[in-house]
């Protein structure tokens, strides 16, 4: 579903990603961990199509097509979704308005019929129930005045409404209390299916107790320095990243 090959990305001349290789198949859940500043969000944003990155080498294929020439909206319409580490506030725009505009925009692009206001309301209310959210969230301005945890939950609501094929969740678990974490995990798990894939960027193994990954990757110095099963996350949790440093330094130092 997603093939990243030797991806090099710089911002303003500063290299951030130094040769990422990653393959994700439909139905899989991958976790990406790694120290602060290692490039996790950069990778996520590059996949979602954000401007301003200099992609100096490498390739990304999604559903066997070159992803990099596509605009963010084309990627979204092709089924890619990014839950932001820091969700944005859009004052004056009701959550329900964004959700419906986004869903209908995507349906239109896929040649499907748009949902009218009434059908949409029914559809979105089921999603609210799934995520234990109050109806009042629909009518508040997008993320404006939301608590940190509510913003994260709202990202998952958007994901649940849009039903993407590839969901990338950038630290959606950070700032969530235990109950909220379980609710969000439930929301993500209910999206799992043989056609879909999920990438979880996280610092905590805790999340992975609820959403069990097929693979765990460690990103350091702009490279994936280690990949393994879920036991890798447990190891990181107890030992930190220090024990990986040798390998990272070794790679950095190579010719």
């Amino acid at each position, binding site marked *: 579903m997603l093939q990243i090959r030797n991806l090099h990305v710089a911002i303003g001349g500063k290299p951030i990603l130094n040769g990422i290789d990653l393959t994700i198949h439909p139905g899989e859940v991958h976790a990406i961990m790694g120290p602060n500043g290692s490039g996790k969000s950069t990778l996520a944003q590059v996949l*979602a*199509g*954000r*401007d*301003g990155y200099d992609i100096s080498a490498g390739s990304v294929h999604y559903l066997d097509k070159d992803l990099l020439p596509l*605009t*963010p*909206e084309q*990627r*979204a*319409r092709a089924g890619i*979704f*990014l839950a*932001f580490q820091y*969700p*944005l506030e*859009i*004052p*004056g*725009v009701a959550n329900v*308005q*964004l959700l419906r*505009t*986004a869903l209908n*925009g*995507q349906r239109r*692009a896929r040649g499907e019929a748009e949902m009218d206001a009434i059908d949409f309301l029914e559809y979105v209310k089921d999603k609210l129930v799934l995520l234990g959210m109050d109806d009042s969230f629909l009518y508040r*301005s997008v993320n404006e005045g939301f608590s940190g945890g509510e913003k994260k939950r709202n990202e998952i609501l*958007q994901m649940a409404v*849009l039903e993407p094929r590839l969901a990338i969740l950038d630290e959606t678990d950070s700032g969530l209390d235990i109950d909220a974490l379980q609710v969000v995990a439930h929301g993500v798990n209910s999206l799992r299916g043989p056609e879909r894939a999920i990438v979880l960027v996280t610092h905590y193994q805790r999340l992975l107790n609820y959403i069990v990954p097929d693979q765990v990757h460690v990103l350091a110095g702009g490279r994936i320095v280690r990949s393994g099963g879920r036991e890798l996350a447990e190891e990181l949790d107890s030992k930190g990243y220090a024990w990986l440093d040798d390998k990272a330094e070794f790679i950095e130092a190579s010719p």
Partner: protein
Amino acid sequence: MTNVELQQRIDSEYRWGFVTDIEQEPFPKGLDETVIQRISATKGEPAFMLDWRLRAYRHWLTRREPGWATVHHPPIDYQSIYYYAAPKSGGGSNRPKSLAEVDPQLLATYEKLGIPLREREALAGVAVDAVFDSVSVATTFKAKLETLGIVFCSFSEAVREHPDLVRQYLGSVVPYTDNFFASLNSAVFSDGSFVYVPKGVKCPMELSTYFRINASNSGQFERTLIIADEGASVSYLEGCTAPRRDENQLHAAVVELIALKDARIKYSTVQNWYPGDAEGRGGIYNFVTKRGECRGDNAHITWTQVETGSAITWKYPSCILRGDNSVGEFYSVALTNHHQQADTGTKMIHIGRDTHSTIVAKGISAGHASNAYRGLVKVLAGADNARNHTRCDSLLMSPDCAAHTFPYIEVKNPSAQVEHEASTSKIGEDQLFYLRSRGLGEEDAVNLIVNGFCKEVFKELPMEFAVEARKLLAVSLEGAVG
């Protein structure tokens, strides 16, 4: 998205720029007492009206153009303007008696503008007075309104048919000595709308005037007078467009609102005069005096404006809160692009006790445009417990545009509470990326952000107008995406 792309996005074509090829009947260029006498005679006005015009003219000669606004333009040559231009088929006393007599070309013009004048095709619930250059060419639903005692007609007709009302109220809120442009308007105004809603009557439909400038080198000087008698209420809408031309054209209107005891007037404007081209050539100079007076207790006046057009906008729809407990509101969206300049805001003058005012001003600037909010909140000594809340927000869409805020506050009564909030923000690339990553195209993303920014104002507009305003904003923000 880069700034260049963002700019392309907000550049757009002015879609109302066509000219109607119709035989005109202009007076010679320039202004003197003879021209004023001719205007008055053409309209068959009573002597008091001519007398008032001439006093205004003589006063105007002693005045200078105001210089305090943050707008710049070459000097206006007042002798090179046509002060009266009317379609030959419909001017003055030739005004058609019914729609069947209206020149089909004029009907077609309004249809093209989306304002069908045939009643069965018209928007249900909206009565329209259509003003073409210097004259009103048609007023719909008049007869229906008359059964309720509501007068809704062209100003010229009001002067002839209801001289006592005109005499009593004309100039009672904006005297002809008020300011340079108001004096000029008082001398030469050609037409406009007149509304009188009698005691206790709630006007059952929206009343609206559609102003269209068509003739070249002509000025448009319309006058609107709206009176809501005790306990009456009315909602009035104003829309405007003009052809695309290289020269600047002057539009100096005066609007007076009078709300008596317990009366309510809601005045909404969507101003879309030709703004000039991308290099700043041409466009309308929109120098307008709008003021309402809450003359009785518990009176309520609301101004809502969406200003997207004109090369220069200079207007301050204001409220004099004379009656105790009266309420004044001002909701404004002003969008300027390219080289447009807007200096707009309001004055809230609190005279009565327990008077309240609310000001919400949203400025959007793009290109090289400049956008200023200028407002005065004045609380006189007798205005016990006056309250004002002002909120001014500016949204910047390019690095070369400017936004200014000039709030003036004068308080002579210690019990007053006056609050002012202001903010300036840039349309964020982060916000745009966020929305695009949900599948919204660039255009939709910009529109959604701008509409959200304007929401507090749009919700004050009557429904059909809110839809119009949203579309207009979308068009003003749209462009060839690279």
